[in-house]
Each structure stands twice: as structure tokens, then as C-alpha cells.
């Protein structure tokens, strides 16, 4: 048994509402959506005090591998399909590289809302879920702050009411695990273990104008770097090294105006931002290098008003764009796409190519979202009409020897949405929703060599239905069924010799169906928590006529139980997670490659096998002391208490004749303390 006990000073994040363990989970406003206050989220065991990691414990979310993706997989949609919005401003991902922390520190977060699907016309641009992070309203008087240090990072925040109308807050975090970890590892392991370094910083300013007006400015920034080197492929003793270096930089600036009057609510916002991504991997002589610098911008305005006592309308415009400069060289299959038959540790193909191009897209939408109330029945129809423009400067590769020729594509989409809610009685509400959704291709898929410049939007049709029941004043139950059909998905071209500038095709389809149950207890004798169970089945058909296969992250059963009790300054909690293992492609044989002196696997059906089921129990104990103006918090977070050996990947012998499991987190205890004023 491997036991790691890490002593750390954790962020002193207790606030007045945290002192009570009473759950502050809010009632859903959309079908299947869940809202969690950040104070509650920080106390979820296993999250080590990181508020946004609560998302992993919500229904509809597939368990995230401790080795694989940093993104969210919601209701059978890939990580790039779920939108992450901070005050309606999109972020490229929820987590820093490595997934230990979120891009936005919890100090400025008020609440987190996850809508796995079926959301209304005000939002678009994604086939999957919608994760909305709402920043806090700043304190109207005084100076407040916090400082924290732990094994992973140091963070601080400060907020002040500069004048009665102007409030400002800043927060920042600096991760130093890449410097600390080598002290705990031998030299070889220090090279082999991917050690992320990260930093994030935020600023929020609020200005009260007239009594019904407010202006706010939010700035977010994040830096990431991750490096790994060593023999992480099939057999360490083979002496073949692999290195990986990844960097990411994100900045966002948003200005937001809101006016609330008796006539209606006006929201106006504009944002601009910059993303920079770089990733270089080397395996023997094969070097793969990707980089992208992307400007992002958007404008959004909405007006919500009540033209009739039974009718509420929201009219809005939503414009978003991206323009990037991208380059890529190296193996075509690195990094792998969803649906690629991946064998962990297998070197990429030896053929190399190169592309460099600029591309962009603009999505301009008008939307109408209504709410019509007829007694117990509420009907919410909406429609979103989008004009989509894509363009680039390379319709063909440079190797074509002609002068670079640009391209442009103009298309549109009309996405109707409908939600119906019937309040059957005081305790029971029935709901159903249906809608169409579109998502533009990623800029990285629009290259003339590794991609296809003529790609258009992918589509999804979503239907959900269910019921919400308030069992007592403190308990609720929600049952949601969902069905999604995905079409025009971007996949690799099936042709052995595809046309120039057509390495990707857009004829993939997907099918997702299932159901989820959420039982919540909201503060009964100090007890709170929830039980979330999702049953789902997700398949992809890469091309017409091809055999449907399981989705890369298809997890049939995902069960999460979160329970906590608080009282007398104490807070204790537990989290149990059980999930079906994700699909993997089986190895059915191998042949020797005398050119490279290694074996190549012969593969079974794509995603025809599965990892073993995942089981983990996490515990958290927290004690808060009140010391004049400050609060002192001591905590102990223990992950995987039973030290269950969860297999995160299959690894193979050099000749692929034997298989073993690469296991994830062993039991891990993190003790912490902190203070806040």
C-alpha cells in the first residue's frame, strides 16, 4: 500500500456562509441544471478546497481520468463541446493543465451552474452542456482579504470599497508544484512525471451608477506549462525517450453594464481575449509541434421585459469571434482525435507534415426567448438565428507551389428551442425540452494539411424530460431523461489517399441517450449533500456505413454520493464515486517493426474493450475557529481512503503479449490550515 501524506497550508476560504454546513444548492432554472454555491463547492471531499472541481461530482458529468483529458464530458459530448462561461465570457477550458486547479480561483466565484443539455435560446455555440460561473458581487464596505499557501500553490485575494460606489477586488494564485515535486522524487522519476506549473490572476471592479445601473469589469489571466521527459512508452528499459512540453496562456477582459428597472432588465457586455497554446512532443526522431495564437472577442446584449402579465420576453444579440494564427508539424496522428484507436504509450506514426495558416470565424446571433405562463403550465419557446462566417488564408497547402489562396464560407443556422414546465402540485413539477444546437469547428481543424478548410458547423438535436419533486422543505429529487442526435461531426477522412486539403471529413454521427437522478438534502440537522446517478449510452458512427462504436468517454454508470454534516465549528464530509470504466481499443496481436526495433500492436474493434470500473471514497474534516476579525480553518482531505487500485490505462509488454494496469491515485491525505479576514 502506498500512502502519501502531504502537509499543506490550505486556503483560508471560510466565509460567514461557510460556517454553516447547510447546503446552498439552488433550485434549477433549466431542465436538468444544477447550481452550487462556491462555499458549498469548496467543502466537497476530494476537491482539496477548489470550488470549481465540484463540477466533477454533478450528475451528467463523466468521471475524468486522473491521467487523461482536462475537459468536461457531459451527456456524451466531448470536452470541446461544453461551453465554459464566466459571466457569459467564454474560457478555453475549466482547468489548468494537469487538472489539479481551475483557471479561475474560487475567491471571486459566487456560484457554479451546470446545464448538461437542453438550454434555451440565449446561449449557443456548443453541442454539449453549459457551465456558467458567476463572479461574486464585491463587499460594499471595508477591506477584505485572504492569503493561503499549500503544497500545490500560493494564493491571495484582496477586495476594497474604494468609494461608496466603486469596489475593486484582485486575486491571484501561483503554482509551484513543478519546483516542489522534484524534492520528493528521484531524478529519473522527476523527468518522467508530468509536473504542471501554473498561475492565474483576476481583477474585478464594480461601479454603481444610478440606483438601477451598474458597471463591472472583469479581467482573467492564466498561465500554464507542463513538461515531461523519459521512457513513458511501452517498456522503460527500452531506452527510447519521449518528451512533452506544453504551454498555455489565456487572458480575458470584459466590461458589463446592467440596468434593472420596473420595465425590464438590460444587460450589455463586451469581451476581448487572447489564447496562446503550444505543445511539442518528441518520440525518438519524430517531433510534433503545435502552436496557436488566437484573439477572441464578443458582444452580447439582452433585454428582458414583461409585455403582458403572463408573458416574459428576452430579446438579445450574441456576437462572438475568433481569429488565430496556427502552425503544426510532425506526425498526423499526434495528438489523437476522439475515435482514434489509441494504445497508451504507443509511438505515433513516423510520417511528418507541416502547415501554417490563419483562420477565423464569426458567429452573430439574434435570439428571442419567451416565457408564457398559463396557470400551472409554463411554456418557454425560443429561437436563435445565427449567421456563421468562416475564413482562412490557406485553401491549399504551401507545398502546392501556387500563391496562397484564401477561402471563406458563409452559412447560417436556425435553432428553435422549447421548454415546457407543468407544476402538478406544490411538490411536483414536470418538464420537457427540445432544441437544435450548432457548433463551429475548432480553428485547429481548418488547416490545409492536417485538417480541412471547408468544414462547417456540427449539429445536435436534444430532447430532455423529467420531473422535480420537493420531498420536504429540505429535500428534492430530480429525474431527467435525455436523448441527443449528433450529426456532421468532424472525423478523420476514411480515404487512404484523400484529396488535398481534405484530411478531415464531416459526416460523423452520434447518438446519446440515458437518464439521471439527483437527490439533494439541503440542510437538515446540519446534514447536506446529494446522490447523483447517471445512466447513459453514447455511440459514434464515424462515417455513413461504418459500424457504430462506443464514444471515447462513454461511461454507462456514474454514481456520486456527497454527504456532509456541520455543527459547533466542525464540518465533516464524504464523497463516494463509482463509474464504469471508459472504452479502450484492445490489442489482439503484434508484429515486429525491424525498421524501428519495436513491436506494433494489431488492434481489435475501436473502443471494443473497457477499463475496469472506478471506485473511490474521499473524506474531508474541517474545523473553523473565529479569532476576532479573522477566521482560522484547519482541514484534512483524504482521497481514495480505501486505497482502491483504479486502473486508468492499460499498459503492455514490449511485444504486446502481456497487459497490466496503470493505476491512478493511491490514498492521499492533505492536511491544511489557513486564515482570512
Amino acid at each position, binding site marked *: 500500500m502506498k500512502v502519501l501524506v502531504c502537509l499543506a497550508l490550505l486556503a483560508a476560504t471560510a466565509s460567514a456562509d461557510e460556517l454553516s454546513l447547510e447546503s446552498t444548492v439552488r433550485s434549477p432554472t433549466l431542465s436538468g441544471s444544477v447550481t452550487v454555491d462556491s462555499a458549498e463547492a469548496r467543502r466537497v471531499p476530494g476537491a482539496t478546497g477548489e470550488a470549481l472541481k465540484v463540477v466533477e461530482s454533478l450528475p451528467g458529468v463523466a468521471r475524468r481520468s486522473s491521467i487523461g483529458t482536462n475537459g468536461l464530458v457531459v451527456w456524451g459530448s466531448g470536452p470541446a463541446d461544453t461551453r465554459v462561461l464566466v459571466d457569459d465570457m467564454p474560457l478555453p477550458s475549466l482547468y489548468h493543465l494537469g487538472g489539479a486547479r481551475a483557471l479561475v480561483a474560487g475567491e471571486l466565484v459566487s456560484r457554479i451552474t451546470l446545464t448538461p443539455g437542453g438550454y434555451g435560446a440565449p446561449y449557443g455555440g456548443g453541442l454539449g452542456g453549459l457551465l456558467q460561473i458567476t463572479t461574486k458581487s464585491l463587499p460594499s464596505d471595508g477591506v477584505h482579504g485572504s492569503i493561503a499557501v499549500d503544497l500545490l500553490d500560493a494564493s491571495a485575494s484582496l477586495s476594497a470599497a474604494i468609494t461608496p460606489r466603486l469596489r475593486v477586488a484582485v486575486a491571484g494564485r501561483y503554482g509551484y508544484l513543478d519546483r516542489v515535486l522534484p524534492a520528493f522524487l528521484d531524478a529519473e522519476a522527476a523527468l518522467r512525471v508530468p509536473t504542471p506549473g501554473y498561475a492565474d490572476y483576476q481583477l474585478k471592479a464594480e461601479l454603481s451608477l444610478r440606483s438601477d445601473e451598474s458597471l463591472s469589469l472583469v479581467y482573467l489571466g492564466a498561465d500554464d506549462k507542463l513538461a515531461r521527459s523519459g521512457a513513458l512508452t511501452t517498456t522503460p528499459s527500452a531506452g527510447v525517450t519521449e518528451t512533452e512540453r506544453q504551454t498555455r496562456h489565456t487572458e480575458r477582459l470584459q466590461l458589463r453594464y446592467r440596468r434593472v428597472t420596473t420595465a425590464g432588465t438590460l444587460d450589455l457586455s463586451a469581451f476581448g481575449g487572447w489564447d496562446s497554446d503550444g505543445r511539442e512532443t518528441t518520440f525518438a526522431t519524430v517531433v510534433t509541434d503545435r502552436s496557436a495564437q488566437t484573439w477572441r472577442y464578443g458582444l452580447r446584449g439582452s433585454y428582458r421585459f414583461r409585455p403582458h402579465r403572463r408573458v416574459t420576453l428576452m430579446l438579445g444579440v450574441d456576437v462572438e469571434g475568433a481569429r488565430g494564427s496556427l502552425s503544426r508539424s510532425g506526425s498526423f496522428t499526434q495528438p489523437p482525435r476522439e475515435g482514434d484507436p489509441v494504445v497508451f504509450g504507443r509511438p505515433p506514426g513516423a*510520417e511528418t507534415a507541416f502547415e501554417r495558416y490563419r483562420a477565423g470565424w464569426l458567429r452573430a446571433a439574434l435570439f428571442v426567448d419567451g416565457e408564457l405562463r398559463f396557470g400551472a403550465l409554463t411554456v418557454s419557446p425560443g429561437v436563435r438565428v445565427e449567421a456563421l462566417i468562416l475564413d482562412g488564408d490557406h485553401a491549399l497547402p504551401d507545398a502546392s507551389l501556387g500563391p496562397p489562396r484564401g477561402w471563406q464560407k458563409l452559412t447560417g443556422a436556425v435553432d428553435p428551442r422549447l421548454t415546457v414546465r407543468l407544476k402538478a402540485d406544490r411538490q411536483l413539477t414536470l418538464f420537457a425540452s427540445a432544441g437544435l444546437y450548432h457548433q463551429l469547428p475548432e480553428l485547429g481543424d481548418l488547416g490545409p494539411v492536417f485538417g480541412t478548410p471547408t468544414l462547417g458547423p456540427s449539429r445536435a438535436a436534444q430532447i430532455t424530460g423529467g420531473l422535480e419533486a420537493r420531498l420536504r422543505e429540505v429535500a428534492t429529487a430530480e429525474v431527467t431523461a435525455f436523448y441527443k442526435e449528433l450529426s456532421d461531426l468532424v472525423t478523420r477522412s476514411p480515404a487512404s489517399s484523400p484529396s488535398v486539403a481534405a484530411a478531415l471529413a464531416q459526416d460523423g454521427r452520434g447518438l446519446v441517450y440515458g437518464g439521471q437522478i439527483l437527490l439533494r438534502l439541503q440542510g437538515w440537522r446540519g446534514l447536506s449533500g446529494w446522490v447523483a446517478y447517471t445512466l447513459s449510452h453514447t455511440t459514434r458512427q464515424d462515417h455513413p456505413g461504418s459500424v457504430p462504436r462506443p464514444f471515447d468517454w462513454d461511461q454507462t454508470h456514474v454514481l456520486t454520493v456527497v454527504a456532509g454534516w456541520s455543527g459547533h465549528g466542525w464540518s465533516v464530509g464524504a464523497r463516494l464515486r463509482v463509474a464504469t470504466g471508459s472504452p479502450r481499443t484492445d490489442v489482439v496481436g503484434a508484429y515486429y517493426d*525491424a525498421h524501428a526495433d519495436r513491436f506494433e500492436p494489431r488492434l481489435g474493434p475501436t473502443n471494443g474493450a473497457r477499463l475496469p470500473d472506478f471506485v473511490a471514497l474521499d473524506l474531508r474534516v474541517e474545523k473553523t475557529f473565529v479569532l476576532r476579525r479573522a477566521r482560522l480553518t484547519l482541514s484534512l482531505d483524504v482521497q481514495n481512503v480505501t486505497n482502491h487500485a483504479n486502473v486508468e490505462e492499460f499498459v503492455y509488454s514490449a511485444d504486446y*503479449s502481456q497487459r497490466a494496469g496503470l493505476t491512478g491515485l493511491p490514498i492521499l491525505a492533505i492536511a491544511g490550515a489557513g486564515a482570512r479576514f
Partner: protein
Amino acid sequence: MFLLAVMGCRPEVGLRASLVTSTKIIAVRAEPAEVSLGEEVALSALVVSPTGPVMPPIAWSMCRTPKPFTIDDVIAPACLGAGSASLGQATSLTATVPFDACRLFGPDLPPTGADGQRVRPRDPDATGGYYQPFVLDLDGAQTAMLERMRCALVGASAAEAALFAMRYQPNQNPELRGVSLSVGGAPVDPAAIPVGAAVTIVPQLGELESYIRFDLASGSVVDEQETVTLSYFITAGELDADRGSTNVWHAPPTAGPEWLWLVARDSRGGTSHLTVPVALR
């Protein structure tokens, strides 16, 4: 936290590739190491067993099916079956690289595909090379080998293409001149190695070749130097590593004859090997 999952939790599965426990092919040498279309190439396999080198009949075939560019394999999976043309049974043989090899496995594609669009040229490897694949079958265990061939240059201007044609030198197999063995810093005779000794192996390589390749990113011809990877195989004991410029063999504690093989592979596909019979006393 994911990094902690990797830390110390990765098992090394199965026997070391360097330990010869059954009859198997460990190298295939082609002479010359690079050919033009229509040229003959002499192919020979190094087959080893726990009792030393052997020369069993091997079923040779020439791959005739292009590899889909979306897979990691070195050859098309179809070439392990019906996608290859049989060449006969032998330990070594001579084959002719067909004139259409650069069309099947290189950049010489038909002007348009079935849909009437121009076809994407195949990508070279990191050294700019294209290869004709061969498949060897030894009692059901299959081996793929690649013979480098000279194909047209893609994406270069006329000036760069002319410069490339003028300066290009075909690849040669690496020169593996010999190997020196020592124990405790003192040279040791392969015929008289102490049992249980830690034997340092230092291969003697010839001069590394320089070569040119066309770099798509800069659109120019660039100079490169080959790298050579050395693989080691033994019939008993244990090596510090399966590959490396030098190595240490921890000889078994029992006296008797054993075998050591070294295989040198250069980055452009050339191969040489050395068989060293040793006696433990």
C-alpha cells in the same frame, strides 16, 4: 493530482526485449540501404535463438497496399495478409523495388482521385524518406521492414529542387566496426568472461553520415546528421538497458557459451549488426 497517479505506479510488463528466449528476427539488413526505383536490393534477416544464430526459411513478401495516413502502423495492416505479393522462402533474397513504389508509398500520386480532386501526397518521415515495405513471416511471427527509396521532392521550388538533386547522397548502412568488452575497466576476451561479471560493452561505430532534406517549414534544403541507435540482445543474464551508445551486461552466474548481438540502425533506415559469441568461465 493526475501526476501523482503516474508517480511510481507504472509497472514494467513482461520480459525484456533484449533477452532472447525464443527463435526470432531481430534485424533485417538491406544492401544497398537506399535504392532507386527498379533497382535490386539484397535482403537478409538476422534470426537468433537461445542457442545462437539460426538460418530458418522465412516467407518473404512485398507489401503492395498503401498505409492509411491516419494510423500509427509502419505498414498497412492489409500487408500482413493478402495485401502483399509473395517473394519466396529463404533467410535472405534479392528483390527489385517496383517502378510504382513511389506511387504506392511515396508522393507520386495520380493527378486526381476518384472524386476528381487532387490527391494529397504521402508524407515523408522526419528524414525526408519514403520506403518500400517488406513482410517476413517466421513460423507465424511477422516482421515488417522498410527499404528506403528515392522519390520526387514535393513542395520545393525549382531552385531548391535543383540544389537538392545536386547535393543528395543516398543512405549507406551504418558501419559497426566491432565491440570492446571490459570488466572493471580491464579489457576482457569474449571467450573468457568471468561468470557473474558486469561486462561493459562499448561498440565501435564508423563515422556518422551527413545528409540533406527538404524542410517544408522553411521551404529550403537543410543539412542534417544521422543518428544511430544501438540495440543489444543476449541469451542470458541482464543488460542495464535494451538500447544505448554503451551498455553493461550482468553475466549469468553459470559457465557456458552465450551470445551477444548488437544491431545498429541509422535514422534513415540503414541497418548493420554484429554477432559476438561469448564464453563464461
